[in-house]
């Protein structure tokens, strides 16, 4: 089982994701954004950070990094592809997920635990969770406010592809309180909060584990 954790210049959560996945028995490997061969990988994580300085627009330059062609290939083949925070933004920019994220409603960076409600289990990120579960997981972003055209949101909702929603207060103004979504195949998922930051008791919450365990569990066998 081999997970590629992609490192772009400016990425900063790669070691955290590596640590959390390793605790769950996965075998993550950090790969540089200029690498062009992910043939040994059965899944990919695009971790959080500020890839390419977030210049132009979050994820807008990363989307053109050489490795993204391989990420797109794996996604098309049905392999699990997970984008966390900045990685979610890249997946949106790359068209692997719909929508985009813009500046938070209150125009300030938010770093704190938020409550998420699991609203679908049909994804590589939520397969092991139960609908209605409330997860206490840190959010850490300035541009975390998910937006999409009304028609696109309607499709996401009607197809049950909103997998995580902010529970209680909507921290950043995201449309329909959306915190995480998936593609039609359920194999590409993105979320703004950081499950790797809630994966050990000593960090104050282990609610992120069920999400990362879902991802790890989906690696073998590779979903068709």
């Amino acid at each position, binding site marked *: 089982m081999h997970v590629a954790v992609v490192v772009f210049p400016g990425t900063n959560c790669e070691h955290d994701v590596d640590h959390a996945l390793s605790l769950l028995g996965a075998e993550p490997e950090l790969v540089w954004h200029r690498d062009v061969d992910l043939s040994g990988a059965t899944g990919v994580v695009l971790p959080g950070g500020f890839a390419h300085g977030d210049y132009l627009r979050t994820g807008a330059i990363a989307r053109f990094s050489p490795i993204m062609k391989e990420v797109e290939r794996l996604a098309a083949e049905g392999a699990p592809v997970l984008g966390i925070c900045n990685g979610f933004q890249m997946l949106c920019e790359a068209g692997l997920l719909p929508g985009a994220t813009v500046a938070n409603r209150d125009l300030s*960076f938010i770093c704190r635990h938020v409550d998420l409600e699991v609203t679908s289990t049909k994804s590589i990120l939520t397969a092991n969770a139960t609908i209605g579960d409330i997860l206490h997981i840190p959010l850490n972003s300035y541009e975390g406010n998910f937006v999409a055209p009304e028609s696109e949101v309607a499709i996401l909702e009607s197809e049950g592809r909103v997998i995580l929603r902010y529970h209680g207060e909507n921290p950043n103004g995201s449309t329909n309180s959306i915190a995480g979504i998936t593609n039609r195949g359920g194999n590409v998922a993105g979320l703004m909060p950081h499950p790797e*930051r809630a994966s050990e008791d*000593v960090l104050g919450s282990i609610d992120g584990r069920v999400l990362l365990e879902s991802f790890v569990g989906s690696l073998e066998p590779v979903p068709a």
Partner: protein
Amino acid sequence: MTEALHRQLGMTDDEYGAVVEILGRSPNEPELAMYSVMWSEHCSYKSSRAHLGRFGHDQPWVVFGPGENAGVVDLGDGWLAALRIESHNHPSFVEPHQGAATGVGGILRDIFTMGARPIALWDPLRFGPLADPQNRYLFQGVVGGIAGYGNAVGVPTLGGEVEFADRFSKNPLVNVMALGLMREEQLVTKAAAGEGNVAILLGASTGRDGIGGASILASASFEEGDEEKRPSVQVGDPFEEKKLIEACLDLYERGLVVAIQDLGAAGISCATSESAAAGGMGMDVDLDAVHVRELAMTPGEILMSESQERMLAIVEPGDVDEALRVAGKWEVQVSVIGTVTASDQLRVTHGGRVVADIPAASLSENAPLYRRPVARPAHQESLWGDRPSLPGEIDLASALLRLLDDPALGDRSWIYEQYDHMLFLNTIVGPGHNGSLLRIKGTEKGLAVSTDGDSLRCYLDPRRGAERIVYESALNVAVTGSRPYALVDNLNFGNPEKPAVMWQFLETVEGIATACEELDVPVVGGNVSFYNETDGVDIYPAPVVGMLGFCDPMPTEPPRLDRGLAGMAIWLIGPESGEDFAASAFSRIVLDHIGGRPQAPDTDTARAVISHASRLAFEVPVLHDVGAGGLAVALAEICMKSDVGASVDMDEWQPLFDETPHRFIAVAPDEVDLAIDDVPVRRLGTLGGGTMNFGARGDLDLGEAHHIWYHALRRRVS
């Protein structure tokens, strides 16, 4: 004409004469520019250097004390920690966002220059009252600048502290502390060695930004119309710094670096001369090789530019190609700009012409040294005599609400929730408690940090104030289970040419040094920021200390303020009330009074209380230092964070608000025995219910208290 130039550059006639004597001739313009910056107060510590030897740092766990880019201490099993504190006060007044941001960038370079990965930041801040829109603008700009840079560069900001007072209105204080972690084999220093070794400039291109920042901004007082100094503020690019961190750490890991020095004040001239002088060598530098941002830069501009995110690495000739390849992998620009020589001279060429040729060591070793006149301020005695007059009775609940509504005592989450304080998964106790606590993954070791200052108390008595912030900081790391291990200090003062300011400075140095000796804590680094004076008004003397604590093992469940449960007993540990109201939050806020003399610390009690706290941290769910606002505020914080009320019996109101030092609250299940021989321990009451109940003195609804406290800072900034 040259005569006029040295004065424009902030040099005295005597200092200019000294340069002429060293060179045996008049300096040319680039040379004069180099001396003016390197001999500025900011770079040379010319007013303070004579006194800084008072700080001790001989403990066996000290690897590097002051003098390197950061202090380094040994944590055992091959682990080293690097720590440093700096100020970016004047740039932050001129341009708050960039001033604060580049302060973060600068201190991170000091840490990874030593070979360590920066793992956390803290930001002690001081501003004028938030009722003034200009102060709000500065405060929001600074917090935004710290967040913008720190978050993007990928180093978590775990906390800090904040004060608001009139004296900081036109001179905010923006200090920043950084902590790094490394394996001992990665340690590097700045000392260039080996004739023929190559100097490589890594990082951002060199532009015209920040020229003369150290001499023009950081070493002079402010007057009206100083907006014109704005071009002297540098602009930061956290993305460039992030790449530079990764490239440098990669270079160290591969053993490709002989020495390395960051570029800060005075840019290339400072980095090359310091590196050469530290190694007892010289250096030839070719300015034509420097990758520049704009055309037609003069040699002086290239030498003096303070463009951010640059490092100077010394590499063996055979390793140059590999070093360039590693830098290229991280998409970091590089140029080979110099060679280490055996000549002792820093020789700089441009366009085939020698543009500077000076003894490398003269920029630092021959810097002026002043013993400025010292005199206790005339008003000090009358300040001491002006004790707060306490009312016989008070409305306890309303007094406590007034304290909780103070922006410095209220909830500071408006600040720290803008900072990524969780990255790296090391944050075991984060902001909003006492000291921060970080784990070192793969070990049982923990590192604690607390930054503390109290400018009002230091104004009333700089020596006692300084001693007390050291003890407070030590107690703040002790309640995480750590023992005080090393200290850095940032000494923020007014104009050192005033004898009263020098008296405040010397009293402070004595206070910090004494308390550190008592605690056996080495002072491994620091920073002095003078000329914090605007329109003739000096700031309050504002020393800030950053205490590093160390524990091995770390408590498995370290105390937090939110672990209190109904039914648990509340204990006060430490001396009984000494009626210490001078510089108390109660006097400042409720009585609107500034005066009196703060109580002197009691060193035996301090030591006993600190070591008791660090032991109890392994057994007790809640420990909380009693600081500003006294027992009442400390207790309220526990109740609000644990979301449970308390019943407390008090015969008098005064012990709830006085600020007698060396005390902490412990909250524990009834059966836990907290008693110890050499420290007073007293049961105060019990947690439970929805109010803070003070018996016959009334009660305060917890929801109301929380509402006031939560909005104290927020409502003033939005």
